[in-house]
Every structure is written in structure tokens, then in C-alpha cells.
């Protein structure tokens, strides 16, 4: 990211010099910085409302409720993890928290799940199929409602900031399905060390 950022800035300066637009560039730097802060402050209202609501959902046990619904699905996705193994419980809670957009709650469950899955891992340092699939699931946004995006849209004066929810759900479903399918299918291309291989 550092490289990309420096490249964007440096290229802009060079191109501005070539185009003779240095004055415009200087002006744009100041207005962009100002605009970014205005935008962020515009987020505060919707973000506060949303995370307040999610906190209520969490205390009402909605994560657990959703976890119960997710359990059968995860059992099917992770046949190599014993259904009663604590790793399954942690994964289920992680997915439930992710679906509700509770990033702060999802990460501890996710790390716990990785630790418990590691107990089933015969090869330290190499991911098991379950760990790879679990991580792939987490790299596909499972979030039902993109709260920050909606807040940004509200802050920039969208007519209906939430009108992207439906399309986002559909695109998310495609991404998550792709994550699962490719993690399953690509597993064969990445062989694990032979179990008999000593160290």
C-alpha cells in the first residue's frame, strides 16, 4: 500500500509538471484533504446509529440466533472438522458476527477458530483445507448490510443511500460462493506434506 500511495502521488506530480498544471495540483491537494474530512464527519451520524443498533442486536443474542442457523451449513462446508469440536463453534460465531457486520466481534471469534483449527493441523506452518476455506470465507464480505458504504452515500447526499443493499447482497453471494468453490477446488493444486514425512 505504501508503494501504491507514493506511486500515485509521485506520478501525479510528474504528469502535472509535464502538463503545466502545477497550480491546479496544489489547489487540488488542499481541497481534497478538506473534502476528505468533511466526508468523514458526515459519516458520524449514520455510523453511530448503525453501530448502536448492532450493539443492541448483540446483547439481544442475535449473534447466537444466527449462529444456530449457520451451523448446519458450516458442518457441510467443513466435513473434516468434527461437528462437536470447539473450532466449529468459534467458526459459526465468526460467520454470524460477520453477517451482522460486527467486525469487532467477528475477529476474536475468527482468531479463536484459527487457533482451535490449528489443533487439528498435523503440519505447523501450513494451512489445512479447513483453515484455508475459513480464511477464504472471511475474505469474501459476508456482511448483509454495508453500513459504512450506506453512511458514505448518505454523507454525499444520495437520494436513497440504502438503494444499493439489494444489489450488494447479490454480489456478496457471488463472491462468497466463489470463495467456497475455489477454496474447495484449488485444494488439490496445493498438496500438503506427506503425513509420514517425519518433521
Amino acid at each position: 500500500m505504501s508503494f501504491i500511495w507514493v506511486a500515485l502521488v509521485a506520478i501525479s506530480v510528474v504528469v502535472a509538471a509535464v502538463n503545466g498544471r502545477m497550480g491546479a495540483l496544489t489547489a487540488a491537494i488542499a481541497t481534497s484533504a478538506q473534502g476528505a474530512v468533511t466526508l468523514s464527519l458526515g459519516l458520524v451520524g449514520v455510523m453511530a446509529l448503525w453501530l448502536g443498533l448492532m450493539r443492541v442486536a448483540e446483547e439481544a443474542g442475535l449473534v447466537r440466533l444466527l449462529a444456530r442457523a449457520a451451523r448446519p451449513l458450516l458442518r457441510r462446508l467443513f466435513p473434516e472438522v468434527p461437528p462437536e469440536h470447539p473450532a466449529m463453534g468459534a467458526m459459526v460465531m465468526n460467520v454470524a458476527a460477520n453477517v451482522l457486520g460486527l467486525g469487532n466481534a467477528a475477529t476474536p471469534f475468527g482468531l479463536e477458530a484459527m487457533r482451535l483449527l490449528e489443533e487439528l493441523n498435523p503440519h505447523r506452518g501450513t494451512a489445512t483445507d479447513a483453515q484455508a476455506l475459513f480464511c477464504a470465507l472471511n475474505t469474501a464480505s459476508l456482511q448483509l448490510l454495508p453500513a459504512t458504504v450506506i453512511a458514505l452515500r448518505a454523507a454525499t447526499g444520495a437520494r436513497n443511500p440504502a438503494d444499493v443493499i439489494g444489489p450488494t447482497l447479490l454480489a456478496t453471494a457471488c463472491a462468497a460462493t466463489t470463495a467456497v468453490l475455489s477454496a474447495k477446488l484449488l485444494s488439490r493444486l496445493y498438496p500438503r506434506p506427506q503425513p509420514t514425512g517425519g518433521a
Partner: protein
Amino acid sequence: MRHALELASVWAVPLLLAGIPLYALCRKVKVYPAFVEGARSGFETAVRIIPPLVAIVVALGMLKASGTMDAVAALLAPVTTRLGLPAPVLPMILVRPLSGGAALGVVGDVLRSEGPDGYAGRLVSVMAGSTETTFYVLAVYMGAVGITRYRQALPAGLLADLAGFCASVLVVRAVFG
């Protein structure tokens, strides 16, 4: 299909806003203090994203003011228009797997300069909502248990992002086109 998606979009927020506190009340949760506590963390989140937002919005502002964006757009136009990717959305694809803050910066920048209700604004919104910071997630999760060989997790994560991008274009075109 299109109607159902619109319906879901319009009803989701009000229903959740009424339904969740109602359910919580039935479960004897102290709704109000819980809400205020959560809202405080929402405020902190909004403030926390200011620095990355400034960094990215400034870089993109420079890219535009210098004429670089126009030049790249003109160069890639034959490919990108066919794929349905407006030039201001291109940086999204570059930074999305690397940094969540930077991706939000791109969303903010596109919404500000192209408007939230145009094709580019809606596309970048859906893209942000349907993809994740793949490299960051893998580094945190795998790193936590000392795994250095991710195996299929990285290609699967990146393919998921790619699928999210492609699906975003198709869905936004179909629904708002």
C-alpha cells in the same frame, strides 16, 4: 428480480431499526444504554477512518488535477468501457484487496466527484460492500497461528474479490441501468 432487490433495499433499514430493539426489549435487554454504548463506538469508527480517507482522497485528487486520470482513462477506454468500468472506479480494483481504509477512500472520492446516484457511484458502493481486504484478513488470521504457507486461501480470496467485482458490474447494470 429488479423489483425484489429494490424492495429489499427500501425495507431493510426501517425494519431492522424497529425489529431489533423490539426483539431486544422482549429479551429484557437494556436497549437504550446498549444503543448509546454502540453509537459511541460508531462515532469512533467514523473518526478513525479520517486519516486513511485523507491520504487516499488527496492522492486521487492529485491524480485527477494533474491530468493523469484522464490520460489513463483515455488509454484504457477501449477495454474498460467494454467491461463497464468507469475510470474513477479503477483505483478501487487496485487497492481493495490491500487496504480497507484506502478502499473506503476510493468510495468516498467517487461518491464526492461523480455523485452517489450515478452509475460510477452505485458501482463503487456495491463493489465495496461485496469484497474484502483479502491480504489483511489472511495476514491477521494466518499470522495469528504462525502459518506461512496459505495454500489455496490466497487465490480463493482474490478470486472471490474478482467475482465480487464482476457481479457488481452485472447487477448494477441490471438494476439501475
